[in-house]
């Protein structure tokens, strides 16, 4: 003890023994203490990046101007409205430097061109991560409570979706994901509310099972429940991984609870014995069933549309007497079906039923033999239906539609990592979790009820992107920063024509006044566009204007009075105020004007690159054939269209050629002179 004390006091003496020396020592200590902060800064990570950046730009041609724009120290983008405090630009120094486009070394790359400026939106809005952090690890990889690691580039479009509730041309992945939330029926179980309070609605139309026994057998239901994709590869119905016993019990309950309905089944009129065996396929073709229904071809590829169910094995499923009734009038069985009510004659129905019966697979469900179910088994089937939430999608007798069956996903994109139970070995990040959950829900435990969907990798990525876009920031930002989704209107045409439009399910493919499908043209202004005689003929026998289209307008076999009802309604109601119905009366068009129009068509504007007027010489295949456009369209519509096609159909690809009034007039006169029959009008 003694020597130490002695030593210490000698040190004290040496340092502070004399006042001047003491002052010197104290100042030195003070100086060192003051130097800690700058030294720390000097040795910090961002400072070393700034030094590296200066080294990088030193040898470049525009070093002087780059140097002038470089600001040392910590940079910050502060946007209180968006909750952005981003210091990323402290190290990412070349983001705005156009001349650094050849630099690939991070963190100095130039930012790729995007529609928004860095200063107005900051970085984390799109990229995630910790904006306030000033080290790479904290900024990019933080997993601390309330923080999020940086978003992988493959999901980058989710950033756009926080503000843009509408669909953007530049975000195909986000758009697909959003469509899928509706199309795959996710929102039947999971509520998704947009920031403006509107709910995402399902578009998959799961069938009601109230009269299911009229339609199919318990054996088919069993096989379907076991593996829906084995019946139809394209179905969106997920696989619940049921045991044989469970599938048997559920099918027993469904068949047992099903109530028969008058008109659901019809006598299966057999086609006449001498019927042409090719009649089935050709009637199926003429009716353009393939516009909505697909069938697997020999090569295993699906051919046809996806609006209705796949029909590859429909013969295994549907009872012929149900099929006949359905084809007679599908709205008897399902009043909201997207399927049109074709006016088939009994013989046609018999032909189609016979044809559809051949679409079957003798192996499918061949090993299924179910014993009659006991009351206990039926009760167990009902219990399973309640537990699995079948009624969230399907109407089922004796089972209530459950409310909020699965977790609300309206803010899933901000789910804190601390609330997530990750699987062993899984990367701790929200995108990884969401994607894994979509890919294989049951991997998260045997008690998880969410079924197994059949999705491609691209579809999983798209869904993940759409879910990641549902963030707390998206909900809390001021309304004026948000771009609202364009909601479907609930437009409903009135009167007997309105009833016809519903029966023919025109809305399934066409849009009218903001409601309807996108497969076929928007008809909101059709009345200004077409001539009466043409419309009448077309509704009787829709011959296509575009022979290259696979999906086409079917023939509904309308009666003359129904046809007139529809024609009158379309011509009077679906009028555009922008079209002058009296424009360019045909009589005032002299032959000279028509001839001038013809020359404009062929030489100045070279319209033949896309349109055919004379089937002998013209080959253009992009736009509709115009051989008889003068008998089809009105002059007022043609003129307005030529002046500005996008004003009438915003998505049309016909370029706006900025025509003078005179040229548009001459072209209209020429086109109106094309009355049909092999393009006589085009000939000299």
């Amino acid at each position, binding site marked *: 003890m003694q020597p130490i004390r002695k030593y210490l006091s000698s040190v004290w003496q040496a340092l502070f023994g004399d006042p001047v020396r003491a002052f010197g020592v104290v100042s030195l200590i003070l100086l060192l203490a003051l130097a800690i902060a700058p030294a*720390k800064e000097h040795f910090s990570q961002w400072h070393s990046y700034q030094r590296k950046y200066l080294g990088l730009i030193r*040898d*470049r*041609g*525009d070093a002087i101007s780059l140097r002038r724009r470089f600001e040392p120290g910590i940079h910050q983008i502060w946007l209180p409205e968006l909750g952005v405090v981003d210091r990323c630009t402290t190290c990412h120094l070349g983001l705005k430097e156009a*001349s650094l*486009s*050849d630099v*690939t070394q991070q963190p100095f*790359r130039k930012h*790729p*061109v*995007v*529609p928004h400026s860095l200063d107005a939106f900051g970085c984390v809005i799109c990229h995630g991560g910790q904006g306030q952090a000033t080290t790479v690890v904290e900024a990019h990889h933080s997993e601390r409570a309330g923080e999020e690691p940086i978003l*992988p*580039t*493959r999901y*980058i479009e989710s950033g756009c979706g926080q503000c843009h509730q509408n669909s953007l*041309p*530049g975000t*195909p*992945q986000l758009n697909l994901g959003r469509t899928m939330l509706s199309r795959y029926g996710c929102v039947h179980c999971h509520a998704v509310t947009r920031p403006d309070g509107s709910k995402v609605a399902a578009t998959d139309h799961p069938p009601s099972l109230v009269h299911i026994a009229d339609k199919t057998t318990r054996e088919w239901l069993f096989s379907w429940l076991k593996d829906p994709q084995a019946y139809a590869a394209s179905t969106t119905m997920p696989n619940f991984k049921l045991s044989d016993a469970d599938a048997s019990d559920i099918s027993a309950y469904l068949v047992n609870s099903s109530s028969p309905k008058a008109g659901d089944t019809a006598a299966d009129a057999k086609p006449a014995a001498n019927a042409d065996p090719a009649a089935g396929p050709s009637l199926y073709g003429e009716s353009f069933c393939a516009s909505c229904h697909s069938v697997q071809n020999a090569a295993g590829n699906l051919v046809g549309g996806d609006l209705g169910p796949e029909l590859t094995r429909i013969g295994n499923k549907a009872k012929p007497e149900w099929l006949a009734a359905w084809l007679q009038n599908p709205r008897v069985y399902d009043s909201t079906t997207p399927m049109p009510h074709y006016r088939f004659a009994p013989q046609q129905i018999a032909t189609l039923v016979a044809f559809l019966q051949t679409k079957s697979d003798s192996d499918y469900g061949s090993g299924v033999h179910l014993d009659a179910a006991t009351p206990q088994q039926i009760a167990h089937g009902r219990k399973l239906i309640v537990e699995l939430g079948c009624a969230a999608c399907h109407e089922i007798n004796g089972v209530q539609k459950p409310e909020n069956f699965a977790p609300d996903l309206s803010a899933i994109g901000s789910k804190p990592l601390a609330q997530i139970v990750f699987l062993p070995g899984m990367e701790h990040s929200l995108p990884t979790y969401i994607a894994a959950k979509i890919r294989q829900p049951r991997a998260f435990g045997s008690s998880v009820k969410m079924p197994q969907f059949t999705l491609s*990798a*691209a579809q999983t*990525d798209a869904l993940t992107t759409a879910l990641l876009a549902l963030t707390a920031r998206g909900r809390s930002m001021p309304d004026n920063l948000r771009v609202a989704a364009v909601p479907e209107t609930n437009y409903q045409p009135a009167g007997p024509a309105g009833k016809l439009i519903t029966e023919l399910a025109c809305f399934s493919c066409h849009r009218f006044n903001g409601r309807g499908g996108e497969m076929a043209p928007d008809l909101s202004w059709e009345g200004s566009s077409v001539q009466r005689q043409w419309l009448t003929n077309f509704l009787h026998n829709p011959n296509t204007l575009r022979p*290259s289209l*696979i999906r086409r307008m079917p023939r509904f076999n309308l009666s003359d009075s129904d046809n007139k009802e529809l024609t009158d309604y379309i011509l009077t109601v679906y009028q555009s105020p922008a079209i002058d119905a009296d424009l360019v009366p045909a009589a005032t068009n002299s032959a000279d004007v028509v001839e001038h129009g013809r020359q404009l068509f062929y*030489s*100045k*504007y*070279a319209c033949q*690159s*896309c349109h055919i007027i004379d089937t002998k010489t013209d*080959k*253009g*295949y*992009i736009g509709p054939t115009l051989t008889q456009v003068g008998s089809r369209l009105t002059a007022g519509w043609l003129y307005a269209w030529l002046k500005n096609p*996008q004003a009438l159909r915003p998505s049309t*690809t016909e*370029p*706006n*050629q*900025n025509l003078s009034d005179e040229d548009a007039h001459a072209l209209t006169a020429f086109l109106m002179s094309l009355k049909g029959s092999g393009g006589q009008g085009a000939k000299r």
Partner: protein
Amino acid sequence: MNTRLSAQTKFRVLAALAILPLTMLLCCKHSALPNAALKATAQGTALVESSGGHQVGATGTTLTDPLVVQVNDDQGTAVPGALVEFHGPSGVSFDPAAVLTDSSGQATTAVTLGTIAGRYQLSAMTPGKGKSVTLDTLEIALGYEQRVGSILADKYCSRCHDPESSPVRVSNYDNLEVKPHAFSEGNTLNKISDADLTSIILHGGPALNRSALMPPYGNTLSAPDIKAIIAYIRALSDPPYQPPGTVYARQ
């Protein structure tokens, strides 16, 4: 804040020192893993590309079609059970990165592009008799602007400019008296400046004394749209497009 940080830094240095040998061990184990698990039962002498090369995708995403290569022997017969490894520049990943060829001699992998837009030179490698055989192929990653360009070009331009038809799109190329160039034809398009490309798209063929079969898009597409289409044309170009302008490096 300060004290926490410095404590953390210290801890990190120590941890890094401790972890270094560990990670080295793990890494060795990792890289050894695939090959150890995959016992090649055969060897080939040639590699050919079956499909999946020259695709175009968005940065950071998995390409739509997998990359498929085939291992053949001297006679050109497919060799099943041969090992194929896939390699690419940093940022590209393969799932799986090494695989044995299937019964038809093919090895299939899903390719995820890097986060930088541009061309990615990929290679497949199979250990042949004596020396290994490699096959090079290329994929193109599009950034945001280029992808907007690709969407616009698909909608407005491809029907004429792409001679290939697909089930959903019948090409109009054969119907045109004057033939346009496919956007990947670098030999021609690389020689046209951005300004000239812009003016032919804005004003149509006659702007450059060419055919009026090329329509004007100046009143249909916006200036950023046209810039995006040009960015896309440049990204597709084969041979690659070299932008003119200053040479930045002094030496």
